[in-house]
């Protein structure tokens, strides 16, 4: 056996997280761990009603409490009064109406979190209660007055594919209700805002998924130019979609600007549930037409996503849902109608899966019904219909990428089931453990199939990009990017890319902040591809410059040079020099912006989406 040298942490190796040691020691600074001299605490007053007219707000009681330094309402917002990721329809503070339970009305800054709580309790708001719109169907049928100037329908999208009159001898139908879910990241929302000494700008440390989008929305509401709002990523305790919308960002910044003091705001667990968007509840109706041997002929479907009071990303979630109507199955004909609507329920937006989860629940329920109606095994019915590379989606998009679905299903089906539970199990083996929430006689085993296909990255013509800078100095590399690290591991991957491209081992990354171009959102499974692409591009540009430098010194055409492990070699000669040596007293820095392939809008019939749907296969026997 030959002795191999120590494995380098390049692509393909299982590298350790660079922040792992500080995280296990408790040293890693999450946004909630941050402090500043002379800091105040902030807190938010929220509506106890889902729909009401605000008759009056009296904040004088809060001002009378010792330790309270600032009380703000909608009247104090210096810039735009509303914000939003896609449509700017959500107020910084409610003005005139509250549209969901938990909507912010006022914020206070005080010397202690307990003082804040007392100040909030001392604010008097008089409401005129209105009948809330809670049934999404009433948003569609127009039986409830518009609860927002933008109306009750956020978006409608239809998809018409093939022969809509086609039918088959087997017809199965179902209506599926999918409830609301919450991301429940562990580190609740928190931010520390530090105003500039001249009062003309602000620095905000915040746990977020997208620094530049936060900055854009904050600057508008604060009435500041974007360059005066500097965001730094505070350590992020999980995200899962819930940090794509802003929550306390504007409030914290505004309190800091008003008091000219640093302000920290942190939600408790209960407030966190009110403070961010959730997964959309949905009602999905589907009717599958099939041949007697179980092949899908046509799918009819209707989707209703309840977006809650403000639109957030509802319009994009709807598109993700309806374009995944068929699931990972061939579907020659389809007619789909989808709505994302506004109600007085809690606002919904991004959560991992982003609309596809809801579609999956419905199409997989349908596949089981199809299996039952045809008498075909539930594995076999799926295998007969699976989509393959080259097949069209109902949007007209051709599935170009690998589609190893048959193998996924067969290998999953071949896996042994866990052992049956003993008739008299140890209490810790019961669901709920020592909480004794279940008795053995009530426990049965259910086995079901869930097969799904999920798109990656953005669609509908959005020109998505990410930015990265690579600086090589004396054999060491420093990377710079604004990519939110939320636990997914981009800070592990980025140095691996640099080591692989440049043949260096000492790679660090700079503070993650807005002092470079946007990296886009840490969402849609996009950062490995997008910010990875940006880091890769920046490193390749630096490599070209390094080759030019080495080529000039050694009189070799730079095009003949290549990286071999940690050396630069002449592919047509004998030159071999370590990158370390070659880059001594040499420094070069390059910035690269990576864009993904262009996508197209859906037309009124949902065609030519060109969503660049990169499937992620998920098979979950449950």
């Amino acid at each position, binding site marked *: 056996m030959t002795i191999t040298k120590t494995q380098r942490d390049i692509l393909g190796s299982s590298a350790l997280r660079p922040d792992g040691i500080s995280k*296990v*020691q*408790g040293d890693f600074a999450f946004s*909630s761990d941050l402090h500043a001299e002379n800091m105040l605490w902030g807190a938010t007053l929220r509506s106890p009603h889902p729909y009401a007219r605000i008759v009056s707000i009296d904040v004088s009681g809060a001002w009378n409490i010792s330790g309270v330094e600032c009380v703000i309402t909608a009247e104090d917002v210096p810039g735009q009064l509303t914000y939003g990721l896609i449509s700017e329809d959500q107020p910084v503070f409610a003005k005139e109406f509250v549209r969901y339970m938990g909507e912010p009305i006022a914020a206070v800054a005080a010397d202690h979190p307990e003082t804040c709580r007392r100040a909030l309790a001392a604010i008097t708001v008089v409401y005129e209660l209105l009948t809330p719109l809670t049934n999404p169907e009433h948003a569609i049928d127009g039986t409830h007055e518009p609860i927002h100037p933008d109306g009750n329908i956020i978006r409608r999208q239809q998809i018409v594919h093939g022969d809509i009159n086609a039918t088959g001898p087997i017809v199965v139908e179902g209506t599926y209700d999918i409830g609301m879910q919450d991301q429940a990241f*562990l580190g609740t929302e928190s931010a520390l805002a530090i105003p500039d000494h001249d009062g003309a700008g602000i620095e905000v440390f915040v746990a977020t998924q997208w620094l530049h989008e936060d900055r854009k929305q904050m600057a508008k509401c604060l009435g500041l130019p974007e360059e005066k709002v500097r965001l730094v990523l505070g350590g992020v*305790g999980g995200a899962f979609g819930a940090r794509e919308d802003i929550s306390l960002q504007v409030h914290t910044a505004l309190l800091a600007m008003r008091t000219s003091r640093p302000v920290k705001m942190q939600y408790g667990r209960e407030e966190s549930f009110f403070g961010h968007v959730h997964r959309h509840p949905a009602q999905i109706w589907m009717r599958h037409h099939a041949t007697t041997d179980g092949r899908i002929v046509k799918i009819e479907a209707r989707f209703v996503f309840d977006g809650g009071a403000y639109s957030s990303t509802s319009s994009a979630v709807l598109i993700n849902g309806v374009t995944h109507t068929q699931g990972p199955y061939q579907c020659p004909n389809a007619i789909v109608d989808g709505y994302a609507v506004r109600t007085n329920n809690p606002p919904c937006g991004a959560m991992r899966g982003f609309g596809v989860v809801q579609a999956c629940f419905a199409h997989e329920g349908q596949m089981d019904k199809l299996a039952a109606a045809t008498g075909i095994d539930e594995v076999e019915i799926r295998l007969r219909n699976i989509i393959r590379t080259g097949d069209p989606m109902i949007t007209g998009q051709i599935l170009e990428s690998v589609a190893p679905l048959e193998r996924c299903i067969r290998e999953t089906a071949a896996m042994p089931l866990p052992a049956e539970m003993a008739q008299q199990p140890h209490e810790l083996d019961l669901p709920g453990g020592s909480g004794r929430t279940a008795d053995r006689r009530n426990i049965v085993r259910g086995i079901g199939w869930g097969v799904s296909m999920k798109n990656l990255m953005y669609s509908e013509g959005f020109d998505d990009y990410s930015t990265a800078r690579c600086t090589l100095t004396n054999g060491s590399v420093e990377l710079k990017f604004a990519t939110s690290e939320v636990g997914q591991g981009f800070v592990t991957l980025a140095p691996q890319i640099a080591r692989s491209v440049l043949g260096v081992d000492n790679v660090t990354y700079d503070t993650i902040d807005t002092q470079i171009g946007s990296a886009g959102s840490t969402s849609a499974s996009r950062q490995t591809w997008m910010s990875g692409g940006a880091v890769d591009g920046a490193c390749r540009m630096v490599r070209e410059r390094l080759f030019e430098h080495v080529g000039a010194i050694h009189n070799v055409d730079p095009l003949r040079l290549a990286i071999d492990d940690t050396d630069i070699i002449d592919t047509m000669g004998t030159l071999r020099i370590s990158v370390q040596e070659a880059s001594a007293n040499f420094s070069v820095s390059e910035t690269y912006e990576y864009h993904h392939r262009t996508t197209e809008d859906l037309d009124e019939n949902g065609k030519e989406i060109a969503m660049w749907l990169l499937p992620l296969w998920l098979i979950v026997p449950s």
Partner: protein
Amino acid sequence: MSEPEHYTLTVNGEEHAVSDAWIGESLLYVLRERLGLPGSKGACEQGECGSCTVYVDNAAVCSCLVMAATAVGTQIATVEGLNQDGSLTDVQQAFVNEGAVQCGFCTPGLVMAVHHLLDHNDSPNEQQIKEALSGNICRCTGYGRIFAAVDSVISVRKNTSS
């Protein structure tokens, strides 16, 4: 608020004076905001998630549920005190090596819970491990890598002691 309180807490073997505190403050708040020990995390503040796990007289507790002023006279240990020379304990090293850390918010609490388990039982079975860690919630990993880290510590300790 009520009259400010003054008391002393013993944390990681050192005495810390707490002055001008509100009597209602939790041990978690005092550790984090007054004593400069933010390693214990606040994620639920209702004893559900275990992110704030510390030891009070060698009992693993949720520091969010302990009134700081009631911990006077006890020995309090936090994640910062696990290895004060800056090196990693075997549990911490195993969490890093096994990929049991993602966002890391639950990690200090889990490290404390695992140490507490293994201090009292050097060869727990799967059921006992799950029960011991059932008070600690992780939203990123799905727990598989965390159990792998625990298993690796158990086997390394066995091999080095035999």
